[in-house]
């Protein structure tokens, strides 16, 4: 029979409305909770005069965290954030080691021991006209 009784129809409507409002409320709640304030995360770091970092120096900048390398070819900044899950690397004789899950990197930032797969990020550097070094993390 294709006809439905009035009672069935009302029941169906009622249930439909109930489920629908439940669904809408859940969706709304999830959206409410998923707002991420666009916090001003610092992405630009002023490292002061380039002359403080003599040729051949490797200086750790903990607030980024990064390593500023001054080689023949110029300045490079190597991020010290582990590419596995984000812990901060600690320098050792051969390069860097991660305290969290034992990843290791050589002094150029290449992976020498897993679980990390990606090499360390090389950060963008800018040297201003008055020889100030700026490092950008984004």
């Amino acid at each position, binding site marked *: 029979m294709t006809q439905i009784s009035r009672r069935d129809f009302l029941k169906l409507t009622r249930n439909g409305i109930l489920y629908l409002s439940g669904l809408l409320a859940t969706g709304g709640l999830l959206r409410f909770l998923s*707002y991420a304030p666009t916090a001003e995360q610092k992405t630009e770091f002023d490292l002061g005069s380039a002359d403080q970092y003599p040729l051949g120096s490797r200086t750790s900048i903990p607030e980024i965290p990064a390593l500023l390398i001054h080689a023949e070819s110029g300045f490079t900044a190597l991020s010290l954030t582990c590419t596995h*899950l984000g812990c901060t690397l600690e320098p050792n004789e051969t390069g860097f080691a991660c305290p*969290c899950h034992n990843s290791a990197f050589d002094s150029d930032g290449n992976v020498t021991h897993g679980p990390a797969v990606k090499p360390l990020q090389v950060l963008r550097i800018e040297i201003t006209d008055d020889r100030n070094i700026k490092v950008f993390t984004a």
Partner: protein
Amino acid sequence: MRPSFFHHLHPPTIPADQARWRHTLGAGGTAVFLMLILGVTGILEMFYYIPTPEEAALSVQTITYHVPFGGFIRNLHYWSAQILLIVSAIHLLRVVFTAAYSHPRRFNYLLGLALFVLSILLDFTGYILRWDVDICYPLLTGTNLIKTIPFIGDFFHRLAIGGGEACSTGLLRMYVWHIFGLTLPIIILGIWHAFRVRRDGGIAVPPPQARTDNARISRNELVRREVLAMFIVGIALILLSSSVPAPIAPAMDSTPAAIREAASQSAKAPWFFLWVQQMLKWGDPFIFGIVIPFGILILVAIIPYIFPKPADSDIGTWFPKSNRLAQITMGLVSLIVILLTLLANAN
């Protein structure tokens, strides 16, 4: 007398088998008692705890060192939480090893497992609330792990800590999840779980015709045993809490540089996640940190549904033949988790 929830849980008489220590190990009841202590001590801590990145660790120090009996209350909260996880695990093992999960108790088995997971999450968020130098790496790696889930990872990450840098802005969310978002469900599911125990015919024992001993105990006797158990556990907790303090570490300065500097002092996950931390050393974080742990959880959850139904006369007896597969599965899972934990602790 009007029937109450208390009377629902304590009928006039129950089969003596259902209340034997060597059968139940008293684990479920102990878990309820510990949760009550956690509720009370937790509320007391809320009088002093300040959920802001700048003041959280200091307020924990205030509770621990200045408030009269504050350190003791905090130790009680800490030890109850750690013991709760152990007791819940024992309860789960008992249920599997005595085939107690079998129909009609399958649904309650799932409720119990959900309670276990909620307890673990509560323990983790509670640990994070210390907001001292030891918590940063576990929080950072834990939340970055969420991000590795394809498609929905970022969404869950925002749900968990509201986006942003875990160690500088994640505290408020952790706090609300701890005292409300996880606590409310654990209360509701906990009451439901206890209610279902009786609805499903009480603690699983062999059916009357298969029982050797058909003695019954009275409500008073049951209550007497429960009080005795609470007394013993209570004394043990008091002794533990007055002799072994809960861990605490120096506050972290909330500037990112200082956080990173200080955080490198400790990279160890809290003890109940050491097994996951150990697996993370092996490779892809999504596989080892999400897929395998959740796979194990799902495997444990479907035990009552995939293995042959235990014989009726076996339900409620230790290590019966008819649920060998379930015992082996559960035994292996526990063994693996324990071994991984030991391995993580060794290096």
